[in-house]
């Protein structure tokens, strides 16, 4: 459903990736840095080396308590305001992993301390206590569009006057569980991702990521001017071959973007079919818009990618320069794919899109408030 009339603003936003906070990540992307490194897919249990972008110093193997907690604490400390999770200031936690890495470690070692963070509810409840949130904490989990849905639900709560402000908080940290799963699907392999490039075979990378956005009706320099979702329900791990799922999602945002000059931050994981379908659909919905994707450097930050990449998009607009698509070489799937960074001062909107298992699509239009 396209909520194109929602005047809700992004008052605050930030992220952490393997390259640092939003500012550091943006700067590194402008320099063309790639955070992905070959790591054994099952960590200390070995396996094929696959491209992963882990936070500096973090291992793929799960620790108890999780070794990503400190990064989450640091990110949370950057969020202004208090009383999150109280009536009128709800929290929407999103992600696709939560503490699931602990289940893998539990099964391998039998150590009960890994169970503590294992289920989404238990993980979120512990995080709630750790970060001092009140009890109004919703948990949204829809694979790689999770963060978009958190933004959508938070927008609706603010728009309806049920919340003064809402916090969307998303985190996904890699583990042998998720790396092993994508490796089993064969889309995570020894190859490094080359989003939107014409290649013989596709490959993705995975990355740690966490991010937040404070949504407000009253304050903020950035507006979520349109949000759209669509679920193809065609196949678990692929999209309809005619690209109609991409079209149906983007048409909701295209209406909100009419008359604006747009650049398009795509999902761009490095898979071939989805990349081609996405670039083609972006060209139909936003003719002439340059397309960029950053997962060739950051890896796919999974359920959090929508919020992580929102923070980088905002940093790009703030700095006046958009990082180009990173990863691979050779011809791109369309002339619209920007492989070099570009000045964005002449643009007045960014469309950020993500996709997920089940043919789920989500997109929003970000522009100056």
């Amino acid at each position: 459903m396209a909520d194109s009339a929602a005047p809700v603003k992004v008052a605050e936003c930030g992220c952490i990736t393997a390259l640092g906070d939003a500012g550091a990540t943006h700067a590194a992307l402008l320099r063309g840095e790639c955070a992905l490194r070959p790591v054994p897919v099952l960590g200390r249990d070995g396996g094929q080396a696959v491209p992963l972008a882990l936070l500096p110093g973090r291992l793929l193997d799960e620790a108890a308590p999780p070794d990503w907690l400190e990064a989450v604490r640091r990110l949370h400390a950057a969020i202004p305001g208090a009383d999150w999770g109280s009536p009128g200031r709800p929290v929407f936690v999103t992600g696709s992993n939560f503490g699931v890495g602990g289940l893998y470690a539990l099964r391998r070692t039998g150590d009960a301390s890994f169970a503590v963070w294992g289920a989404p509810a238990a993980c979120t409840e512990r995080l709630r206590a750790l970060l001092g949130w009140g009890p109004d904490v919703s948990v949204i989990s829809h694979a790689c569009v999770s963060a978009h849905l958190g933004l959508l639900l938070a927008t609706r709560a603010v728009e309806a006057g049920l919340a003064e402000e809402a916090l969307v908080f998303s985190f996904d940290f890699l583990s042998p569980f998720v790396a092993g799963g994508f490796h089993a699907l064969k889309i995570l392999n020894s190859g490094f991702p080359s989003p939107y490039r014409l290649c013989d075979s596709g490959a993705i990378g995975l990355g740690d990521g966490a991010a937040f956005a404070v949504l407000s009706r009253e304050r903020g320099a950035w507006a979520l001017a349109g949000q759209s979702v669509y679920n193809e329900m065609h196949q678990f791990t692929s999209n309809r071959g005619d690209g109609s799922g991409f079209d149906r999602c983007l048409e909701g945002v295209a209406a909100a973007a009419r008359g604006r000059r747009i650049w398009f931050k795509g999902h761009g994981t490095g898979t071939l079919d989805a990349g081609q379908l996405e670039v083609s659909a972006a060209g139909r919905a936003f003719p002439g818009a340059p397309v960029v994707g950053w997962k060739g450097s950051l890896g796919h930050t999974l359920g959090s990618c929508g919020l992580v990449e929102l923070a980088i998009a905002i940093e790009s607009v703030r700095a006046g320069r958009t990082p180009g698509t990173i990863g691979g070489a050779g011809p791109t799937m369309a002339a619209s794919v920007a492989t070099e960074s570009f000045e964005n001062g002449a643009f007045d909107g960014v469309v950020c899109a993500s996709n997920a298992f089940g043919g789920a699509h989500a997109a929003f239009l970000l522009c100056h408030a």
Partner: protein
Amino acid sequence: MLERHLQALHTDNPGDETPAAARERLKGRFPPGATRRMTTLGLLVGNALAELGPGPDDAIVYASGYAESRALEGFLDSFPTPSPTLFQTSIHPSAVQQLMIGRQAPVREFLPLSGGARLAFHALRAALLSPAPRVLLCGGEERGTWLLERGLASARTFAFAAALSREDAPGSLGSVRLSRAGGDGELGLESWFDLLDGRTAFDGLVAPGWRLEVVWR
């Protein structure tokens, strides 16, 4: 106040029914061969949702705290050669996707939630804030095995699906209202299911500052 009207409801409370028995009971509700890879939760939620005839313009709000526990257990047991099928099946919110992909039935808005003590409240708030004319609020849990022993899966299997409309209509089953109020409370998914399954009226606090009324006709 947020209000929607209950136009249709299906609940499934199978007690100690085994996964094999659930599959046998429900296999006629799905295309031949489709149930082979479906989870117990997928079967139960899928059947409940199918009763409501989901359409492309409906919004689906799905709530499950533990989701596909058996598939998750199987996936974890499959290492060091992880199963791709169990990986994709174990991902929240696969239960609804098992039905909808089987039917090749796209839907505009699909909002899957997880959570604990206030999961039902959060799902209800998401449902009542949706702009869709009809919202299908569904959910459930499936009983785990070794994850249950660790407190990481549900001890009970159940499923529900309710059709909620903006406008009241003849034949509606009742109404659901959320309003702001002082005080605190909880409403987990199992308690919400029991309210629906027993057609039990409710008026009480379900979250800090939120009151729920469930009225049956």
